[in-house]
């Protein structure tokens, strides 16, 4: 079947099989491999991207369901000259990543979280990221990164 999806601002048309998961569409058809598959049960969030601006687990969305919609991945977050988005910069500043496997999903989930709750408390950050697993960091610095990014974003007047 045919799908038309806007990926990181760029519209594309592709012929796919109906069962193609959005995460595999992004990785294999679009060559955008930052989103990772980390589990089988929609638990870990390593595949998180934005669909029309809200965070979703792309392993549990069919590419077919995304047809006619817009997807943003971690690759699409940074500026045209590779400048880091404030959330990406905050993760770096606070050492909120180690092996990096959960990181693109964690970053996109954070962008989604801050869009809905620009000034979260620590507890709200932890609950807001309950769908994103990390084995390396113990979450401590991820929480710091999100709180720091919240401060940055509100200071800059960004949403």
């Amino acid at each position, binding site marked *: 079947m045919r799908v038309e999806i806007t990926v990181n601002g760029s519209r594309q048309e592709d012929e796919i099989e109906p069962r193609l998961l959005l995460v595999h569409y992004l990785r294999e058809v679009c060559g955008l491999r930052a989103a990772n598959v980390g589990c*089988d049960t*929609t638990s870990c969030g390593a595949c998180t991207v934005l669909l029309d601006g809200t965070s979703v687990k792309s392993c549990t*969305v069919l590419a077919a369901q995304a047809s006619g919609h817009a997807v943003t991945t971690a690759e699409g977050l940074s500026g045209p000259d590779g400048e880091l988005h404030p959330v990406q910069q905050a993760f770096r500043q606070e050492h909120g990543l180690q092996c990096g496997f959960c990181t693109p999903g964690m970053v996109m989930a954070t962008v989604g979280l801050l869009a809905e709750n620009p000034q979260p408390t620590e507890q709200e950050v932890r609950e807001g990221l309950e769908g994103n697993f990390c084995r390396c960091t113990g979450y401590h610095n991820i929480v710091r990164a999100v709180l720091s990014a919240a401060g940055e974003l509100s200071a800059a007047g960004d949403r």
Partner: protein
Amino acid sequence: MIPSPFEYVSAGSADEAVELLRRHGDDAKLLAGGHSLLPMMKVRLAAPSVLIDVGSIPSLSYVRAVDGELAIGAATTHQTVATSPEVRSQVPLLAWSAGLVGDPQVRHRGTIGGSLAHADPAADLPMALSAVDGRVVVLGPSGQREISADEFFVGYFETALAPDEMIVEVRMPVRPGRPWGYQKFTRRANDWAIVGVAAVDGRVALANMGPAPVRAVSTEQALAAGAGATEAARLAAEESDPAEDMHADAAYRRHLAQVLTKRALISAGVPA
């Protein structure tokens, strides 16, 4: 974690979806948010050969007041239900419940209709609907009918829906300003409830105490007879047939039901 192959069709309206269901029969399943169905398909516990996408039907996503009741379109996401000012003021228990389903990403996709049709006895919304005395509005080839929550959930992942019917709307009486209680006992925040309790206005519903949400009728009767929360909660597990799994044996579930019901009732304004 790849589903078996299937055909995909997109329905433009509820009527069209029902017609497609009729045409494909048992081979077809409806797809709204896909966050109950696709996880099952990915581990191959379900393998429909046709998916009928109803997730983009705009007329199925809404929150409105109708005849003094709250009406929610079946394809309304949990996120919308949880944050809707209307739901939060008119049936706050439901908004709270929707806000606890899974995690934020799941709530952005999962729908109230999808969750109710999935009928997981450990899930939040079936229990919540039962507690607030809600109904599902169902569309089939011969028209619409309404089914009360208590009659809708018949067994383990089993509802009163016929194979060619779909939920189009969820309805419930409004309870603005009424105190309510909700207890969801989990190991981790985004787990299903080991035991759940929802209580409002003398109605008490339990999650994961049987193959469908259980109304704690003995507790309700005790409350009606003037019992306090502690006393009424002692009877919370009377109607239950709790399963044993690695999280809890039946005895522990019964104990939790009592403790959590007491707490929910206190939140719902019942004196201890």
